[in-house]
């Protein structure tokens, strides 16, 4: 275990999670290695978001979640927030808050209940805004941002938590292909610079295969396959679990590309 702990940033063991009697996620085990990008993929309703929430401690769960070998059950909410940054699929964006005010909220895990932010908190925020190309928008209200700018503001808010692990639920929701690429490139760069472990859910399998080092395919609350994208994304598997007619092609440098196929007579 100690040998694995040096490279395993996150490990889930037999995790079941969700509200109500019937958990959405059942007996999920997976690992994310430090500094790598793990993408959780799967059809709608498979439980992708619930896995992230289980790690962030936002849903009732059973089983074990280890962060760098530490059981998250032993961490206080604040300690957890210093280790795990989380952004939901549709983050709340109070429209009249300025970008700086909003990003500054991400420093909360590092502040006492009655404390005020210090100059160092402000400079951490400023640094994040610059890294995400938001410095020019620092005084703007959230309600005036475009979709791409808003997603970067959310990323900045998570970034200033300064956590070794980022959980991002569909970070490119609502973005066109160009803005989605820009955001994912930025995220990839931050990950490499800070040696951060990134876990995202992504619905676009081709994009997931391009950015993630490892994929975990989830269906009906359980892990179906895990490993490098080229091994996880096979035509048969996707046809079975997505109930979709797709073809998996491979690029010259070995990245799988998932292409929907319209079979004759579908009309």
């Amino acid at each position, binding site marked *: 275990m100690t040998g694995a702990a040096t490279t395993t940033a996150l490990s889930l063991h037999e995790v079941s999670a969700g509200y109500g009697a019937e958990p959405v996620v059942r007996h999920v085990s997976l690992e994310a290695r430090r500094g790598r990008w793990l993408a959780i993929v799967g059809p709608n309703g498979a439980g992708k978001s619930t896995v992230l929430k289980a790690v*962030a*401690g*936002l849903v009732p769960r059973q089983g074990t979640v280890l962060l760098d070998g530490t059981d998250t059950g032993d961490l206080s*909410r*604040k*300690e*957890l*927030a*210093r280790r*795990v940054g*989380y952004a*939901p699929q549709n*983050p*709340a964006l*109070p429209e*009249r*808050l*300025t*970008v*700086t*005010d909003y990003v500054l*909220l*991400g420093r*909360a*895990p590092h*502040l006492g*209940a*009655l404390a*005020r932010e210090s*100059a160092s908190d*402000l*400079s951490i*925020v*400023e*640094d994040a*805004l*610059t*890294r*995400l*190309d938001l*410095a020019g928008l*620092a*005084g703007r*209200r959230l309600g005036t941002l475009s979709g791409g700018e808003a997603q970067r503001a959310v990323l900045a808010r998570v970034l200033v*938590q300064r956590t070794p692990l980022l959980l991002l639920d569909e970070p490119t929701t609502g973005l066109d*292909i*160009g803005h989605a*690429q*820009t955001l994912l*490139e*930025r995220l990839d*760069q931050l990950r490499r*610079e800070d040696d951060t472990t990134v876990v995202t859910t992504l619905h676009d399998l081709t994009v997931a295969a*391009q950015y993630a080092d490892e994929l975990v395919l989830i269906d009906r609350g359980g892990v179906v396959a895990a490993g490098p994208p080229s091994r996880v994304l096979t035509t048969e598997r996707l046809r079975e679990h997505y109930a979709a007619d797709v073809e998996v*092609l491979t*690029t*010259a*440098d070995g*990245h799988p*590309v998932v292409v929907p196929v319209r079979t004759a007579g579908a009309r």
Partner: protein
Amino acid sequence: MLRPRSRRATAATQRATAATQRDTAAEPPSRAAANTTRLTPLAVVVAVVVLVGVALLGMLIGPGELAGNRVLAEILAQLTGGVSPLSESEAAVVWQLRMPRVLLAALVGAALAGAGAAFQGVFRNPLADPYLLGAGAGAGMAATAVMVFVPAVTAWSFGPVGPLPLAAFAGALLGVGLSWGLGRSTGGAGTAGLLLAGVAVTAFLTAVQTFVQQLNTETLKQVYTWTLGGLNITGWTDVWLVLPYVGLAALVLVAAARLLDLLTLGDAEASSLGVRPGRIRLVVLAAASLATAAAVSVSGLIGFVGIVVPHLVRLLAGASYRVIVPLSLLGGAAFVIAADLVARTIMPGELPLGVVTAFAGAPFFALVLRTNRERLS
């Protein structure tokens, strides 16, 4: 055949690199500070000047053959240790009637506006007001019961405190307590259960009040007047009665302002940032309800203050509760002093304070809403 990364992605990479390579050290940290919504000295000075000015007016103007300039001379004499220009009875009017009334109006206004801001933060709803959880209905029911069932001649009291304020205070806390208990027992996460419990409790307590009121229709006018709100005080007792609650609540709410900002993100995101939304709500609602109960106990039901003042502050000073809470406290105080001044001078008799706050506040509010249209959208 298929290129793994488009030129666009390469362009994106370059932009990302350029952004990070930009010299961050050259930017002074004060720039970030300039873009945060914080209480500026200017805003505080303006609010305090307005408050003191209105309070001074409240002292200078009032019934009785007492010219404003003589009152001003008296105040200056007291401040500088000079000789009082007033007779003993005239001085009593200033220090035993007008002064406590102005201070009580300030405390009631601060309580209602501060509590309103807190309720809007906790419920993430701009229409939330301090009476939302049954504080008003509970106080109204208890006050009505006293007016109907307790004959004036045998009125029980605790020292100088009459039965009406005590009953209203207890009734307000009872209403909020019932809502909280009911909201908790529904087990729902978040605030929806609590909000609906408040609606149910308010409806029920109002029904009880109406029933009690019908038992003795002779008190109808008295009950009606009470529900319209007013500051018919006898002296300093009410001020000392209300001050600890409002003072404590003000401290708690100002301290919790940053946490209220976190609540605007919703429970899940606030939790992911290491705070406990349920605990914040409990503390904030307890403080706000205590302040509301204290205000209601001495003033009856004064509407509009809890909604209009926080919204004015929001429009004029920013959307962070670090600004909204303290400026609402100061602004609410000034607003109710001014409204009370109008209430007791505009007619030979006295207008109900709640009528004035709505009558003067609503058009002013509408005006500010209009002139700030672009800021709202």
